[in-house]
């Protein structure tokens, strides 16, 4: 045990002190920050007010265009050709020409601008025109505006879990997002750090230090020390990412609060907008309620369990691959059977399991050790029967013990084997070598 601890320490310290580790650990939260800040900054840069002239020959749209802080509408008069001539000298960003209109087939409306007109302005103008023309048509057909407003209905279906424990509001979106996020993290973690185990083993082989070390410790101790040490590196990195990211986001949050806050002016522009705002707020409230109703301790506990379980299961195999080859280019043929179950689960998880978290595919994939770390994490937020969870956990532990046993047997032979291309047949023989 003491020797595993020594190896663990070395593997951990060597990696944590590496420049690449420090850079990656700092860079990821900064990238996240950039991801949050840059769009806001860009939006604030392009915030200059557009001024758009309106040449209304039909006379139907007087004062119907609502100016916003971003976009001002200025009425113009005169002939189209005159306006065109003046326009180039004016400071208007564009002008809208509305000819005499046939309301059943309104045509000939055109937005002139110095450079390409922004999509935003085009959409805003189109919707104002549409609304106004529709209003006029409604009036012509004798439909009262008030009646129309009353008819409009806003529907949103809330979902509630009914179980022995009582009623619980949930939200399919939040639930699947929670599952998806944790499954994704496990997937990434297994890959990133599994490959590090493999590289570490190959490094020891190519440095020719491995025989020196295993004359002092058992190959199994060396392998376990390495796997656990790298797991600790990964946990450290994730922990730092979480801490730094939350620091960065909260710092950004306080800095950009005003800009990120929904502009109240928009809410005041129209009743329908306010409604939308309301329903959005309701949606967010509902999401938060659903988040509160998720069994977070269970999810977190399971996350850590499957996170470590999955990593250890695959980590041992990655270690065995490293032992079986002389350099990284030879790893391809052995990597495939390891990566296929991982990638497949991840793909199936996104398509099948998330849609039907209690179906047979979901069940089987969440109990088979090779697929369960990812599949089960998708299912857990939706609620999993206790016996299935226990079955899956027990099988994962057995699977981990199994792959470690298998890997250790390949490892102890492989690390002393140089300059030999190994086939699967050869590997299977190693399992039964007496050492």
């Amino acid at each position, binding site marked *: 045990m003491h*020797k595993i601890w*020594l*190896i663990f320490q*070395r593997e951990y310290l*060597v990696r944590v002190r590496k420049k690449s580790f420090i850079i990656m650990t700092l860079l990821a939260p900064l990238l996240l920050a950039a991801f949050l800040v840059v769009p806001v900054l860009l939006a604030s840069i392009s915030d200059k007010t557009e001024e758009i002239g309106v040449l209304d020959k039909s006379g139907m749209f007087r004062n119907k265009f609502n100016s916003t802080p971003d976009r001002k509408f200025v009425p113009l008069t005169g002939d189209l050709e005159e306006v065109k001539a003046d326009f180039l000298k004016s400071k208007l960003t564009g002008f809208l020409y509305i000819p005499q209109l046939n309301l059943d087939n309104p045509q000939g409306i055109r937005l002139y601008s110095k450079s390409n007109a922004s999509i935003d302005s085009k959409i805003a103008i189109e919707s104002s025109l549409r609304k106004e023309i529709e209003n006029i048509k409604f009036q012509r057909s004798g439909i009262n505006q008030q009646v129309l407003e009353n008819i409009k209905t806003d529907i949103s279906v809330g979902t509630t879990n009914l179980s022995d424990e009582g009623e619980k509001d949930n939200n399919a979106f939040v639930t699947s997002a929670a599952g998806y996020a944790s499954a994704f993290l496990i997937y990434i973690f297994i890959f990133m750090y599994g490959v590090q185990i493999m590289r570490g083993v190959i*490094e*020891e082989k190519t*440095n*020719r*230090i491995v*025989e*020196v*070390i*295993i*004359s*002092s*410790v058992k190959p199994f101790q060396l392998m376990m020390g390495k796997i656990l040490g790298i797991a600790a590196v990964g946990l450290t990195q994730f922990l730092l990412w979480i801490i730094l990211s939350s620091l960065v986001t909260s710092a950004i949050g306080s800095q950009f609060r005003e800009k990120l806050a929904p502009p109240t002016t928009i809410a005041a522009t129209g009743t329908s907008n306010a409604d939308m705002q309301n329903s959005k707020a309701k949606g967010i409230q509902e999401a938060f309620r659903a988040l509160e109703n998720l069994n977070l301790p269970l999810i977190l506990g399971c996350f850590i369990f499957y996170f470590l379980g999955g990593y250890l299961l695959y980590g041992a195999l990655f270690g065995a691959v490293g032992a079986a080859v002389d350099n990284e280019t030879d790893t391809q043929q052995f990597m495939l059977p390891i990566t296929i179950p991982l990638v497949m689960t991840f793909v199936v998880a996104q398509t099948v399991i998330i849609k039907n978290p209690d179906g047979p595919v979901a069940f089987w994939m969440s109990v088979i050790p090779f697929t369960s770390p990812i599949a089960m994490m998708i299912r857990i937020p939706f609620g999993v029967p206790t016996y299935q969870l226990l079955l899956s956990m027990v099988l994962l532990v057995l699977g981990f013990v199994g792959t470690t046993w298998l890997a250790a047997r390949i490892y102890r032979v492989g690390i*002393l084997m*140089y300059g030999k291309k190994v086939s699967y047949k050869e590997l299977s*023989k190693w399992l039964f*070598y*007496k*050492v």
Partner: protein
Amino acid sequence: MNILNIVGVSKRYANHVALQDVNFEIPAGSIFGLLGPNGAGKTSLIRIITQITGADTGEIYFRGEKLKPDHIKNIGYLPEERGLYKKMKVGEQLLYLAQLKGLTKHDASQKIKNWIQKLGIGSWMNKNIEELSKGMQQKVQFVATVMHEPELIILDEPFSGFDPINANIIKDEILELREKGSTIIFSTHRMESVEELCDFIALIDRSRKVLDGSVRDIKAIYKTETYLVEGTGHLLVLSPDFEVLSQTESHGLFRASIKLHNNTTPNDLLRYLIQTVEIHAFREMIPSINDIFIQKVNENTHA
């Protein structure tokens, strides 16, 4: 007192036999040569002694005790395939390896300090291994092998890749370690490199031990009663007691190897020759370990 007793050790791999019923002893405080051509089974035997692998049958006793994991800290092993972590500092690396051998951190740093002073490598302690030349790395490897002051030091092909200066430094250190009571096993296929150092040897060929014992005894057994004579004059041997095996002559100087028969002594030969020629040099032709080895291996092949 033997530091190692190797009793009936056999080891098979999937498609070949590495060792077959190997028996010999290694006396404590000696320098022992484990000799044999490449692929004879030397490294397999060493890996069994260092407990990297286990024997299929047979036993090894360390100071009369059955080999057990606890003995690891009494053994220092420099493998043929040797190296160090490239991106680790010399000092940290030595400390790590010493701790793996079971030394406490305090003891380890004390012993490392002594060794680096002795070999004058103190200024390297904070350098990464990859910054050192190959010769420097070899010194570090040697320190890593002996720093825990093991009773038994096993060096597999120790001088391959060593430059002559380093090889001599290492030889001196090895002799000093023996003075202090360590036993050293040299494993090599280059007999001439260890002949002068070894007290005892064992020859292994194609998984079997073919010869073992003290170098002096073996040479006595294999000596051929042949003498080399150089001198001037016309060499003519007619006595049935002496047989000229080979003879060359140049510039009036002859050189001949002569074998004694019928229990005659070198003095008899001298007396006989003095009558006809003038003798400049006379010495016994002792077979080198290399010769004995080749003879043994050939016998083996033809048998």
